[in-house]
């Protein structure tokens, strides 16, 4: 592809911004357009992109957990076969009450993604009909892909670990014990992780 004018990408971005008032769209690079907007408008933007802009294919849906900012970011990736442009649509949803519009009526394949998101992140899709168990069975803990889920702790609690490794020693401790060095507490965070 030698076309680096970004004309078609810019046209799509402009078109989106013109149609939806609070949407910000920008061209990231050739064949990549990114748009972000508030969550209520997502279904209409998706329908618009599918029906009017030629983004017939939903390539991917995913979630990013921004735990520090207390929200999830939903990411929809669409693909236009004719223009060969990928459109990424993002929106933020609250982390406490994570609900998102169900879009499996727009694309059937969203069903699978939404089941996974519901299971792994605990995002609810009102009106979404899909089997409850997907990858996990009988899961009653916090959704495991949320960043506040402590995988290590859960694994230690649930599974067994082969004994016989208790005599392992730490190099730093061994040496400081041998030479009588006392590492001050405030410095310990800079010591090598054990």
């Amino acid at each position, binding site marked *: 592809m030698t076309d680096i004018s970004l004309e078609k990408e810019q046209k799509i971005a402009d078109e989106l911004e013109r149609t939806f008032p609070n949407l910000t769209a920008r061209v990231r690079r050739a064949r990549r357009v990114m748009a972000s907007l508030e969550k209520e408008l997502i279904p209409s933007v998706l329908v618009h992109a599918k029906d009017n802009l030629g983004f017939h294919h939903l390539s991917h849906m995913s979630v990013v957990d921004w735990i520090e900012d207390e929200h999830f970011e939903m990411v929809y990736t669409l693909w236009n076969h004719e223009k060969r442009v990928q459109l990424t649509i993002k929106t933020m949803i609250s982390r406490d009450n994570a609900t998102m519009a169900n879009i499996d009526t727009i694309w059937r394949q969203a069903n699978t993604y939404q089941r996974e998101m519901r299971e792994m992140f605990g995002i609810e899709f009102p009106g979404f009909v899909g089997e409850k168990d997907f990858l996990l069975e*009988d899961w009653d803990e916090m959704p495991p892909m949320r960043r506040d889920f402590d995988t290590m702790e859960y*694994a230690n609690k649930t599974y067994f670990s082969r004994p016989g490794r208790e005599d392992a020693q730490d190099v730093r401790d061994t040496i400081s014990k041998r030479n009588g060095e006392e590492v001050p507490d405030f410095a310990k965070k800079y010591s090598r992780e054990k």
Partner: protein
Amino acid sequence: MPNDKNSQKIVDMITGFARSNSLFMLAYGTGCGDIEIPPAMTSRYDWERFGYRKMATPRQADVLLISGYLATKTLKRVIRSYEQMQEPKYVIGFGSCTINGGMYWDSYNTINMLDHYIPVDVYINGCMPRPEAVMSGLFELQEMIKRGDANGAQKYRENLEWYRANQKKIIKNWKMPDYNW
């Protein structure tokens, strides 16, 4: 009945020979290690030379190959398959994952120690083991069968409660039929 060399009866020798030279594997592709089976069974290493065969159902199989990590969801199926297998039956665990979790040691959804859920006769170490290693593991199993050491199934029957407790710790909603071995 444990067989020691001196009291080994001729019948045991014959059945031992037959059992060790005709191992039917249950092809349960549990993990990434299953990719090592095709080279072992097809022309490159051709394990049929030793009478090994892949069987598609647990009823007909003698050996259950656990090829790598087991998710809790998979474990349930593995236990069911194992219990449906007809004795004598053996389990081969291959890959680090079956021994102590391997690279999935801290995952929320994969078990670490296979031998806490079903008895394992032979471990083949590797991530993943080469087809040669897989076959060496089977040779080891053959030797064990001839010696009469491969008695995992017996162990399972004797310690069923312990195994069940471990299994139920993970499979919370226990809706499994009891198989009448």
